[in-house]
């Protein structure tokens, strides 16, 4: 038997007895960032492919959520900082090796673009909107003329936003649960899936709802594949990775993960979406609401369980 104890006494706040440096702020931001990335990706994609009129909710209505979601997410990030008044230090340097650094810069691109996108579609919400000043009309005309290049920039940066949240975690080899390259694609897929679900929730157009239900179904399939792949990878890896996987396979996170994320957040909505596509008439909001709730719970579980996983020495 091997027993290891700190005998000098140590109770550093947020570190002991187990790491808990990140509370609700980070997982909430990861969820909101992923959801915004999903919504903006579809808005940009269907603008580039010229389908604005076919998918008006995706291109014009749903993006109104993103300035709000991103602002709340940024506020959560700011609240999480322990040295808040120094936050501007993020923008005095670009550090290629730090995912948090390029995440901060990505937000610097995506957040203003989410406001521009909403401003360009303001008449969807307020048909009688008046910009009042000529320079604002000129600015609107400028952005509208360049909508395709803007959509391309948004497409690329929304993908970076979606994937970086996962890479941020996977770069920490000190936390074996996070230390898998599957996490980037997994968080991206989950973000796109919650984005599609938000569009289904908002849409009043049956054809558009069905298209996004189909997209969401495909994304759920990819997500399930990635989750299974992630656990297979852990179980075939070192002892610390096996123990990280066991947090979800018999450990304290088993029930919340397999019940709330896997069953209620992925499997049940997938079945409901399949039934919807087979023309069974069910309340359409149940499946997307479950997907969104599942995405939120998934971020919280990964953030907390990751901090509980560690190397042994």
């Amino acid at each position: 038997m091997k027993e290891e104890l700190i005998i000098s006494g140590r109770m550093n706040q947020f570190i002991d007895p187990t790491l808990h440096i990140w509370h609700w702020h980070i997982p909430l931001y990861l969820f909101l960032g992923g959801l915004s990335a999903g919504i903006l990706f579809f808005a940009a994609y269907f603008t580039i492919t010229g389908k604005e009129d076919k998918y008006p909710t995706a291109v014009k209505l749903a993006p109104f959520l993103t300035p709000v979601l991103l602002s709340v997410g940024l506020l959560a990030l700011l609240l999480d900082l322990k040295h808040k008044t120094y936050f501007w230090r993020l923008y005095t340097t670009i550090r290629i090796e730090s995912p948090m650094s390029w995440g901060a810069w990505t937000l610097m691109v995506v957040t203003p673009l989410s406001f521009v996108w909403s401003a360009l579609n303001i008449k969807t919400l307020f048909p009688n909107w008046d910009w009042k000043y000529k320079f604002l009309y000129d600015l609107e005309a400028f952005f509208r003329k360049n909508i395709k290049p803007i959509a391309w920039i948004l497409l690329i940066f929304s993908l970076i936003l979606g994937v970086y949240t996962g890479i941020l975690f996977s770069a920490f080899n000190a936390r074996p649960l996070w230390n898998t390259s599957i996490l980037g694609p997994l968080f991206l897929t989950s973000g796109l899936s919650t984005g599609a679900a938000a569009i289904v929730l908002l849409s009043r157009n049956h054809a558009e709802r069905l298209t996004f239900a189909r997209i969401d179904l495909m994304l759920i399939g990819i997500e399930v594949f990635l989750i299974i792949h992630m656990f297979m990878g852990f179980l075939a890896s070192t002892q610390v990775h096996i123990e990280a996987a066991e947090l979800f396979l018999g450990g304290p996170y088993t029930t919340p993960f397999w019940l709330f994320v896997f069953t209620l957040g992925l499997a049940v909505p997938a079945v409901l979406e399949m039934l919807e596509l087979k023309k069974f008439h069910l309340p359409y909001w149940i499946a997307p609401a479950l997907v969104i709730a599942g995405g939120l719970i998934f971020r919280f579980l990964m953030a907390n369980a990751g901090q509980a996983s560690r190397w042994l020495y």
Partner: protein
Amino acid sequence: MRYAMAVDTKKCVGCSDCVVACQTENKVPIGYCRDWVVEVMDGTYPQLEIEIRSERCNHCENSPCVRCCPTGASHYADGGVVLVTPDECIGCGACIASCPYDARYPHPDGYVDKCTFCLDNRVKKGLDPACVSVCPTKCMYFGDLDDPNSPVSKVLKKRKFKTLIPEAGTQPQLYFLI
């Protein structure tokens, strides 16, 4: 210049003088520790083996904390010592999560704090770090690995040693004599 420390696990008695010396020298806020003592008990009674280690930041050559810092506040100073510049640190916690040794903590003033090897306050004045200088069993050795006559170089030539979690790829510079 490569500063390193070696701790003799056969001589350490776990008195925690190093911990108190560090707290006093570096004005570590009450309730926090930059160094700590670990006791490992291995075996079944009566065949027991004890290893006692005085631990702190490993001042890794490949530091995950320096890599993940978004502002460059965590950096390599003279001799490879890993330091944090308080007024560049935003307190995001990335370095804390990235450290496999849990050697860092958020200082109550907001920035992230950790062992400095007493670089500016003692080592640059030609003194040993506070923990090394007070150890009653003289179980700690500090110095420059590039200097073959430094105490740490000499003891590492003579004795068997190990580092903590070398498989994490951090290349730690805190050696334990076994």
